[in-house]
């Protein structure tokens, strides 16, 4: 399978020359998906900035301890998972299946840890009465919950899908069913999820630190 794929890269059906990007179609497809998905997140972030500017007393509820410390740790976990992912892709291209699967499992564990820590944070907020449609703070700004849970929730869905995706790739690559290109394409998705968090973390958490 890898050979036919490779033929596709070098000998393009278009007889005018080599393939313009010199990558396989899966990778190009994932890149195009990432660009369109990044625009989804940009639209959400811009609309969040808009309602936040429009509202005079936007709540800034997060304390350095525990909320910011927790979300900083989540950022650390996600960045580390990106490192193990990129090392996994490297060893996949070197043909080391065992090492690749180990790196992928490390990435999956980091992803699960991220989702679990995030979930405990959500549960704490629910316990304080902060939900997508209400919160206990005065003056009452109902949009806070909508933007907060909308942005972090969509990101969490991406992480969850990424964990399932990586698990399938790790299983298939370990069995020799998938090629290194499959691992690389799943890596692109995982790094994108990491990249989105690099915007959500400062915009949603760091700009909402309690000013007192």
């Amino acid at each position: 399978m890898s050979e036919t794929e490779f033929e596709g890269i070098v000998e393009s059906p278009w007889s005018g020359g080599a393939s313009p990007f010199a990558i396989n179609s899966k990778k190009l497809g994932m890149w195009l998906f990432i660009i369109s998905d990044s625009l989804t997140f940009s639209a959400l972030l811009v609309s969040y900035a808009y309602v936040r500017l429009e509202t005079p007393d936007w709540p800034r509820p997060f304390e350095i301890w525990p909320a910011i410390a927790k979300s900083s740790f989540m950022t650390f976990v996600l960045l580390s998972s990106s490192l193990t992912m990129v090392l996994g892709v490297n060893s996949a291209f070197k043909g080391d299946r065992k090492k690749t699967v180990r790196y992928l499992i490390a990435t999956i564990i980091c992803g699960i840890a991220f989702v679990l820590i995030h979930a405990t944070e959500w549960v704490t907020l629910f316990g304080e009465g902060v939900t997508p449609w209400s919160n206990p703070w005065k003056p009452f700004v109902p949009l806070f919950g909508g933007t907060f849970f909308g942005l972090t929730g969509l990101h969490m869905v991406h992480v969850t899908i990424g964990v399932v995706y990586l698990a399938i790739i790790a299983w298939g690559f370990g069995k020799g069913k998938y090629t290194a290109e499959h691992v690389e394409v799943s890596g692109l998705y995982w790094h994108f999820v990491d990249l989105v968090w690099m915007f959500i973390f400062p915009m949603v958490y760091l700009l909402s630190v309690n000013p007192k």
Partner: protein
Amino acid sequence: MSAHGHAELTHEHSVGTTRLFSIVWVWLLLLTALEVFLAYERLEVHLMITILVGLSLIKAALIMSYFMHLRFERLGLFLLLVPAMVFCICMMLIMFFPDSIRLMDLRPH
């Protein structure tokens, strides 16, 4: 020919070494730590948002060029993807800035 080509492909993909990726990872952590420190210092909001967006863009560029291998791809792929995305985000901001500034002015003082 095919085997030779595959070797070439493998070579092309192992441009980044473990050391390079670890350095990028450390830089990303340092930039994140700087962001958290600024939040701890509670800077004035407009200054804060400018610095945070700037640092986030640097982090995004690091992730895209090294972790997502965009630096090791052909220039054509970059030109296909990034300008279109930047253009779309600029279009969102063209709608955003005039209207949000107007809304801030309309606020009761």
